[in-house]
C-alpha cells in the first residue's frame, strides 16, 4: 500500500459513513455475545431492512463498551442501552425517529463512564473490528505510516522511552529500554512476540483489546518490529479465546491483502509479517521463556534467565516480547508524542491502565483509568461500591501473583510503586473485590490452588511447595491446623519465593503473605478454634525409614 492509498481508504470510508443519518452499535465481544448480542445484532439488521432503512441506518458490531454486567450494551446514536434482549430490536429501531426506549437507557454520564480516560480503548464501541476500512477511518495504521515515512528506528525508540510506557504484562519493565536492548542485540534475524496468553483468573483486558481493536495490536507490533529491526511477528493467544483468534486472523488477512503487512510497507524497505500461535491455556505459558518454548513446539516450561529473550529468544534470536496492551499503547504514543503520553499518570507510572473489575461490586466490567487514580475512586465511584449494603473488605490486584489491599489503604493511588509497597502488584490488571463476608484464608487457598495446578512442575519448590502450602491452607480453613502449621506455612512461603525458577513460583506465596500481613487474625481465629489448635505442636515428625 502506498501512503496516499491509506488516506484515500480512510476518506472513502468516512464519506460512506456520512450517508447514514443514524448509527446503531452493538457490542459483539465475548461478554455480550454470551447474552445473545449476536442474535440482537442480526435482529436489528433485519428490522432495519424490513423498514427499508438500510441506506439511512448504519448497523454494526463493535468492541466492548465496558459495563459488561449490564450487557448486552448497544448504542443508538447518542443513547446507550443496557440489558437489551434480541426481541427489543424493533423498539430500538423505531426509537431512532422518536424518543429513546426509556426503560433500557443506560446513563453515560454516570461516573463509570465519566471517570475513565481512554487511550488503548478509545475506539472500542466506535469501530467494527472486522472492517479494516472502518478501523482505518478511525486512524488505524496512521502511526505506522508516520514511523515508516518520517522516523528512524532510533527516533521511535526515543519516543517510546520519553513516553515512560512500562510493560502491561505484569512486571512493569520500561518498554523503551526493552526495545533499545533488542535493537542493540546482534544478529540478522529478530522476532517480535505479542503476549496474549492472559492466564490470570478474572482478567480479560487483553482479550477485549484483541477482540475489539485487533488492527491496533498489529500496528503496535509493526512499529516495534521496525524499531528493533525484526521482520517476523508472532501473536500468542490462548485457544480459549476463539473470538479473539478469529478477529486477529481476519485482521491479519485483511492487512496482508491491503499491503499493510508484507513486503515494503508504505513504499519503505521494511518487511513485516505476523502469524498467530495458539496456546493450550497453561498459565505458565504467559511467562516469556515458557511462551517461547511453546512457540518453538516444545513443552511450555520456563528456563533460567539470563540470557533474556532480548538477547536469545525465539530460535536463539533476539526477541522483543511485549504484552497486548503494551503494543496497543504504541500507536497513540507515536501519533500524539511521548511527551503527551508522559503527562498522564504519575511520575513513574505513565499513561492509563485497563482493569477488569470483578467480585463484590455493583459495576463489573472493563475500565481504563489514568495511572495514579485513587483506589477509592475506582471502587466507590467507577465500580459503584459494594452491593447489598455490605462493607468493603479488600481488593485483590495482580491475580494469583499479587496480593490484597485492605480498607485502611483505600486511599492509595494505583501505580506500580504504591501497589508494590503494600505487598501487592499491578499485575496485568485484574481487580477482584471482596466484601465483609469473604474469608481471606479461603481467598489465599483459592489462589494457591490455582498456582498448584498451574505450576509447570519443573522446579521442586514450586511444584511440591505449592502443593504443601495448599495442604496447610486447607487444614487451616478446615480448622484442623496448629500454630506449628502456620509457622511451617510461613517458612515455606519464604523458601518458595526465594528459590523458585520463574515468576509463577516466586510470586505464588504472595496471596498468603499479603493476607497474613493484613488479616493474620483470621488465620489465628481458625487455628484457635480448631481442636488441635491448643496443643501448639502439630509437627508430623515422620521419620524417614532408612537413611543409612
Amino acid at each position, binding site marked *: 500500500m502506498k501512503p496516499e492509498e491509506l488516506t484515500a481508504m480512510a476518506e472513502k470510508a468516512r464519506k460512506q459513513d456520512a450517508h447514514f443519518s443514524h448509527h446503531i452499535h452493538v457490542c459483539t465481544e465475548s461478554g455480550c455475545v454470551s447474552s445473545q448480542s449476536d442474535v440482537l445484532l442480526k435482529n436489528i439488521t433485519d428490522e432495519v431492512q424490513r423498514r427499508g432503512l438500510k441506506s439511512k441506518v448504519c448497523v454494526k458490531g463493535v468492541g466492548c463498551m465496558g459495563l459488561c454486567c449490564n450487557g448486552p450494551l448497544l448504542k443508538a446514536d447518542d443513547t446507550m442501552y443496557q440489558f437489551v434482549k434480541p426481541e427489543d430490536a424493533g423498539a430500538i429501531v423505531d426509537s431512532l425517529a422518536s424518543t429513546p426506549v426509556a426503560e433500557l437507557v443506560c446513563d453515560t454520564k454516570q461516573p463509570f463512564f465519566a471517570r475513565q480516560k481512554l487511550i488503548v480503548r478509545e475506539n472500542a464501541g466506535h469501530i467494527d473490528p472486522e472492517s479494516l476500512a472502518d478501523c482505518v477511518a478511525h486512524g488505524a495504521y496512521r502511526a505506522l505510516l508516520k514511523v515508516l515515512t518520517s522516523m528512524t528506528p532510533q527516533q521511535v525508540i526515543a519516543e517510546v522511552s520519553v513516553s515512560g510506557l512500562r510493560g502491561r504484562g505484569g512486571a512493569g519493565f520500561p518498554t523503551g529500554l526493552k526495545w533499545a536492548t533488542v535493537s542493540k542485540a546482534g544478529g540478522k534475524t529478530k522476532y517480535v512476540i505479542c503476549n496474549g496468553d492472559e492466564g490470570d483468573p478474572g482478567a480479560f483486558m487483553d482479550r477485549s483489546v484483541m477482540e475489539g481493536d485487533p488492527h491496533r495490536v498489529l500496528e503496535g507490533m509493526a512499529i516495534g518490529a521496525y524499531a528493533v529491526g525484526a521482520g517476523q511477528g508472532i501473536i500468542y493467544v490462548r485457544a480459549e479465546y476463539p473470538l479473539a483468534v478469529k478477529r486477529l486472523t481476519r485482521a491479519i488477512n485483511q492487512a496482508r491483502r491491503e499491503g499493510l503487512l508484507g513486503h515494503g510497507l508504505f513504499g519503505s524497505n521494511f518487511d513485516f509479517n505476523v502469524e498467530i500461535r495458539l496456546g493450550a491455556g*497453561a498459565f*505458565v505459558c504467559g511467562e516469556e521463556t515458557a511462551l517461547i518454548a511453546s512457540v518453538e513446539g516444545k*513443552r511450555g516450561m520456563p*528456563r*533460567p534467565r*539470563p*540470557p533474556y529473550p532480548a538477547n536469545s529468544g525465539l530460535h536463539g534470536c533476539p526477541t522483543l516480547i511485549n504484552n497486548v496492551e503494551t503494543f496497543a499503547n504504541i500507536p497513540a504514543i507515536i501519533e500524539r508524542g511521548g511527551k503527551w503520553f508522559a503527562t498522564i499518570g504519575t511520575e513513574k507510572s505513565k499513561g492509563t491502565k485497563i482493569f477488569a473489575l470483578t467480585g463484590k461490586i455493583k459495576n463489573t466490567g472493563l475500565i481504563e483509568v489514568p495511572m495514579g487514580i485513587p483506589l477509592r475512586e475506582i471502587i466507590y465511584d467507577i465500580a459503584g461500591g459494594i452491593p447489598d449494603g455490605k462493607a468493603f473488605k479488600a481488593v485483590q490486584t495482580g491475580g494469583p501473583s499479587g496480593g490484597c489491599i485492605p480498607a485502611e489503604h483505600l486511599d492509595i493511588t494505583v501505580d506500580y510503586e504504591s501497589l508494590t509497597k503494600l505487598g501487592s502488584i499491578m499485575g496485568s490488571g485484574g481487580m477482584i473485590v471482596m466484601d465483609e463476608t469473604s474469608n481471606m484464608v479461603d481467598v489465599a487457598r483459592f489462589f494457591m490452588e490455582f498456582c*498448584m*495446578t*498451574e*505450576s*509447570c*512442575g*519443573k*522446579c*521442586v*519448590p514450586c*511444584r*511440591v*511447595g*505449592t*502443593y*504443601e502450602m495448599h*495442604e*496447610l491452607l486447607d487444614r487451616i480453613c478446615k480448622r484442623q491446623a496448629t500454630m506449628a502449621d502456620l509457622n*511451617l506455612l510461613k*517458612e*515455606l512461603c519464604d*523458601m518458595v519465593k*526465594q*528459590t*523458585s*525458577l520463574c515468576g509463577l513460583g516466586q510470586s505464588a506465596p504472595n496471596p498468603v503473605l499479603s493476607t497474613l500481613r493484613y488479616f493474620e487474625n483470621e488465620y489465628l481465629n481458625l487455628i484457635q478454634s480448631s481442636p488441635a489448635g491448643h496443643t501448639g505442636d502439630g*509437627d*508430623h*515428625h*515422620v*521419620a*524417614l*525409614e*532408612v*537413611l*543409612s
Partner: protein
Amino acid sequence: MNTPVDITTESITLQIDDKDVSCRKGETVLQVARENGIDIPTLCYMEGLTVWGGCRLCMVEIAGSPKLQAACATVCMEGMNICTKSPRLENYRRMIVELLFAERNHVCSVCVSNGHCELQSMAVKLGIDHVRFAYRFPHLEVDNSHDRMRMDHNRCILCSRCVRVCAEVEGAHTKDIKGRGVLAAIIHDLDQNWGESSTCTSCGKCVNICPTGALTHRGTAVGEMTKKTTFLPYLTLMREAQL
C-alpha cells in the same frame, strides 16, 4: 550446549566462599566452585547435559544481589563475591529435599537403589532426619514392560536427567514429561508403555544417569542397583575432541 554462553579463553577472577578463584569467562559458578573443591549440592545437574535448573539445591548468594541465583545457570563475572553456604541456604536446601520425600513414595528400605541413591545421600548430607510436610502418598505405577529396564514412578524426582541424556546424548528422545505440577510424570513416546516404545534403543543411559531407584535394571534386588555415570564425561570429552 553445556553452559548458557560459550566459554572463551579470557580469564576472570572472583571469590567463592571467601576463596579467590579464577576461571574462564563463560564458566558457571557451579563449574568453577567444583573445580576448586567447593561442594554445592545438586540433583538435576549433570556435566555433559544441558542445564536444567530445576532442583534449586544449588542456589547461592551473590553479594550485592537481592535475589538468590542457581549456581548451575549463573555465569561467573569479574569480581563476583559468592557465598555457597549459609544457615539460610542450608535451611532452604533441607526443605527442598524434604519436599521431594513428601512428594512421592520413597521407601528406601525396600528399594533396589538403597545405599546407592543420590536423593538418600543428599538427605544424609544435609542432616535431614524427619520430614515436616504432609506426605502425598500418590498411587503411582511401576512400568515393567521393558525387557531389561524398569521405571518406578514412585521414586522419580523429575530431575529430567533421563529425558536429557536420551535426547541429547543418545539422540532418541524417547522420554519426555507430561502433565503439570505434582501430576507431572516421565513418559515414553506418546505416553506408551516403555516396552512398546519404537524409539527406545535400549541403550540404558537413562538407567545409569538416574539419581534414584526410579530407573533400574530388572533383576536387581534391594540395594543391588549401582549406577555407572562415567560414560557421560567420557562421551562428552570424545565429542569435544571431535569438534
